[in-house]
C-alpha cells in the first residue's frame, strides 16, 4: 500500500506537472487501496482509504509524467547506467573500436550525436575528427555539442598539456607516460574527458589507450584470487604539488552488483608510504602480484590502440574504464609544438545529453 502511494501520485494533486516530482513525500502511514476503478491508456484509476483518488502508472510511459512522454531507448538507458551487458569489452583494437565520427555531423544532428555518445559508452572511447583547431576551442566544441557543464578541478576548467621545463605534473614533461587513469585521488574521480589535439608536430608522442575492463574480466575468469584483491584492497593515492594536497584510498576495481563499474589506476601517485600503514606485508605482497598481473595486460601492445593524433582530432575517453598514455617525444630543435587540451565532464552530464528528450 505504501509502495503504491509512492509510485502513484500521477494526478495533478500529487505530482508536479512542471517538476515531474511528487508534491507530497511525508505520508508514510499504512494507507491501503480501497477501490480500483479501471484502466485507461497508461494508468489505473485507484482510490485509497485516506479518501484520495488518483492514478497509478501501468507502463513506463505513464510512470514518467502526467502526459504521454517518449522514453529513451532501453539500450541508451542501460549504457548510461554503465551496464556491462551492453558494453563491448575489447582486448584488441577492432575497426569498430577506432571508428571515427565527423565533428560537423554530430554537432548538427542530435541523433548522430547520441550515436556518438552511445558508441563512447559502449567501447569506452570515441574519436571525432575535423574539429576546430585553435587553443581553447575545446570549450566551444562542448558548448556546440551541448555537453555541459564541464568540471572545474585542480588543473582548471581546461587543462593545457604541453611541455614544461619544470613540470608540475608528469604529463607536462616529454617522457613516456605509462597507461593510467586520471585523478584517482579525487573522492569523485572524473568519469569522462575530452582530449583535444591542437598541435602535434614533434617526433614521437603517439597516444595509446587500452581497455581495463577487458583485462579485469580476463583476470576474473582466470585468476579469481587476484581479482578479489583488486576489488577489495584500498590503494592510497596522493598528489601534492605546491598549494594542493589531494589524497584518497580506493580499490583498483569497483563493482556495481556483479558489473565491473569503475577502475582507478595511476601508478605515478600510488602512496606507498600510506599503503604500508594500512595493510600488513602479506596482504600487500599478494596485492602487488595481482596488480602486476593487471599491469602486464595493460601494457601489452597487442591490447592497445595507438595513434598519433593530428590537429583537430578529439577523443572522448571513459576515465573509469579506458587507460591512456603516450610515447616519449622530442623537444628542442627547429620548432614545432605538441599541445593538447583536456576538459573533464561528469558522467551525469554525458548521460543527460544522451537521454534527454528534444
Amino acid at each position, binding site marked *: 500500500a*505504501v*509502495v503504491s502511494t*509512492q*509510485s502513484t501520485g500521477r494526478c495533478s494533486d500529487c505530482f508536479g506537472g512542471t*517538476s515531474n*516530482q*511528487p*508534491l507530497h*513525500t*511525508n505520508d*508514510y502511514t499504512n494507507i491501503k487501496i480501497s477501490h480500483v476503478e479501471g484502466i485507461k491508456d497508461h494508468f489505473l484509476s485507484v482510490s485509497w482509504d485516506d479518501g484520495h483518488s488518483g492514478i497509478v502508472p501501468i507502463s513506463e510511459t505513464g*510512470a514518467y*509524467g502526467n502526459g504521454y512522454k517518449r522514453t529513451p531507448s532501453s539500450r541508451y538507458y542501460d549504457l*548510461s*547506467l554503465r551496464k556491462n551487458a551492453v558494453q563491448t569489452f575489447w582486448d584488441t583494437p577492432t575497426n569498430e573500436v577506432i571508428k571515427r565520427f565527423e565533428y560537423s555531423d554530430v554537432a548538427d544532428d542530435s541523433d548522430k550525436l547520441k550515436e556518438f555518445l552511445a558508441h563512447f559508452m559502449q567501447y569506452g572511447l570515441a574519436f571525432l575528427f575535423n574539429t576546430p583547431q585553435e587553443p581553447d576551442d575545446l570549450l566551444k566544441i562542448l558548448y556546440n555539442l551541448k555537453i555541459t*557543464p564541464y*568540471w*572545474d*578541478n*585542480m588543473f582548471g576548467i581546461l587543462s593545457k598539456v604541453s611541455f614544461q621545463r619544470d*613540470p*608540475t605534473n*608528469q604529463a607536462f*614533461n616529454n617522457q613516456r*607516460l*605509462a597507461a593510467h587513469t586520471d585523478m584517482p*585521488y579525487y573522492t*569523485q574521480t572524473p*568519469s569522462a574527458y575530452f582530449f583535444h589535439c591542437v598541435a602535434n608536430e614533434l617526433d614521437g608522442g603517439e597516444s595509446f589507450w587500452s581497455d581495463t575492463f577487458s583485462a579485469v574480466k580476463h583476470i576474473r575468469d582466470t585468476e579469481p584470487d587476484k581479482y578479489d584483491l583488486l576489488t577489495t584492497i*584500498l590503494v592510497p593515492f596522493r*598528489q*601534492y*604539488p*605546491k*598549494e*594542493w*594536497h589531494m*589524497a584518497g*584510498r580506493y*580499490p583498483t576495481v569497483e563493482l556495481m*552488483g556483479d558489473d565491473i563499474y569503475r577502475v582507478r589506476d595511476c*601508478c605515478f*601517485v*600510488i602512496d606507498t*608510504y600510506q*599503503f*604500508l600503514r594500512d595493510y*600488513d*606485508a602479506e596482504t*600487500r*605482497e599478494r596485492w*602487488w602480484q595481482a596488480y602486476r598481473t593487471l*599491469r602486464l595486460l595493460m*601494457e601489452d601492445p597487442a591490447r592497445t590502440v595507438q595513434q598519433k593524433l593530428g590537429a583537430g582530432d578529439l577523443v572522448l575517453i571513459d576515465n573509469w574504464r579506458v587507460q591512456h598514455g603516450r610515447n616519449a617525444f622530442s623537444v628542442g630543435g627547429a620548432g614545432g609544438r605538441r599541445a593538447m587540451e583536456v576538459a573533464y565532464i*561528469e*558522467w*551525469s*552530464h554525458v548521460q*543527460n545529453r544522451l537521454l*534527454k528528450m528534444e
Partner: protein
Amino acid sequence: MLGRLGASLNALSTRFSKNLQVRTNSTAQLTESGMLLDGRQLLHVETRNMCRCEKCLGKHSHTRPNLPFQGSNFPDVRAEEIGRVSDNFVSVRWSDGHEGLIARTFRGDYGPEPLASRVENLTDIIRRRNSEQIFWTGSNPEEQTKFWDWNWVVESSDNTREFLIHYIRYGIGFLTNIPLHLQMRDIVHDGLGIVRAIRKTVFAEVDLVRFQNNPTNAGYGTGGLPGHTDLAYYNQTPHVQFFHCLENTVDGGESFWVDAFSVIREMQETVPELVERLSDIPITFRYTPPGTGVFHLTNHPVVQFDKLNGDIHQVIDHPWSMDTAMFARTHPLETRIKWWEAYLHYRSLIEDGSRTYTRFLRGGEFVVLDNWRVYHGRKEFTWKEGQERVVATSYMDWNHMASRIMSTEVGDHVFLEIDQH
C-alpha cells in the same frame, strides 16, 4: 636543476662508498622479502616505489614517472644494500643499479613542516573517519550549532582551517556577519581560500532558490521540504554544499538539519538487519523535469560504508526523485517489502523532531553542509507580494575542501630536505 641533481647524486654515492657492506641495525635491515624499517616490513617492490631522490620523484610534481617493476627492465627489483640512515631517510641501492633514498617519517615522505605534521595529525579527519566526527546527540548542542564570525574566520589561514575542521567533525558549519555584497565566489574562493571550488551542476554554478510559479523543482515552491540530501540522481552526488541566505522576509520557511550518521549509528545498535538492507539494495533516482531537456538517473543504495574500516561513509536520500516505478520493475516483491520496512523505520527516525536543529536563516548567514551526511529541509512558508526568501546554493568536491586544510600556504617551501640526509 641538473647541477643540483648531480650534486645530490654525488652525495648519495659518497654515502654508499663509505658503506660497502650490507648494514644491519635495529633501524633498517634487509630481509628476504624486502626491508625491515623501524619495525615495519617493506617489500622490495615497495622500497623501489618509495625512492625520494630527485631522479625518481618529480621536484615540482611530487609524482614518480613510472612503476618500480615496469616493463621487462626491472621485473623483480630488489633492495640490495642499505646505506646511511638519518632521522628522516635511509639510503638504498637496488638491483637495477639505482641508488636513492626512502623516507622513514612523514617529514621525509611528504616534505618539511608544516605539511608533514598536518598530514600526520589530520589524515583521519579529512578521511572523514567516524572516530574523528562528532555525531549529534541532541537537537541543539551549543558547539554543533555555533555560529562563526566571518571576520574571524577569514582573518588568518589557521582560523579558516579551524572552521573547516569543525565543519568536518559536525557535518555542518555556520557563518554569520558576512557582508551582504559578497557573492558565493567571493565567500568560497576569496574568503575561505578554496580555489577552483564550485562545481557546476544542472542547477548551474549558483542556484538561487526562491519561489517560482510553476516550479521546475520542489525547492522552488512554498511547500515544506522534508529532510533530504541533494542531487541523489547524480552518478556522483556532490559532497560539500553551501547555503547563502541572501534575504528572508517571509512567514515560516525555517530551515532545519538532521545528522543521518547519528540515526544510522543508532540503527546499527538496535536494528542492524535494517541498516544492511539500506546499504545492500540500490534504488533508482531520477530527475526529468518536463520541457527542460534534463534527464538524470542513477542507482544508489541509501547508505554506504567505507570498505576498509566499516565507517558510515555516505547517505543518499531524496524522496522526490525516487523512481519507485522502476524499483518495482527491477526488484522482486520480497526484496522491496524488506527495503520499505527498513526505509520507513529510517525515515521515522530522521523525521523525529528531537534530532532536528531548526533555525530561521537571516540575510548574511551562511551554512556549509556535508551533503553526504546531514539532511536539510525547510518548513513551508507563505509568500506575499514584497516578501522574499532567497537562498543561494552551490556544491563542491570534497577534495578541494580537504586540500584547503592540508596544503601548504603560498610561498611555503615544499621540497624534501634530502640535502640534509
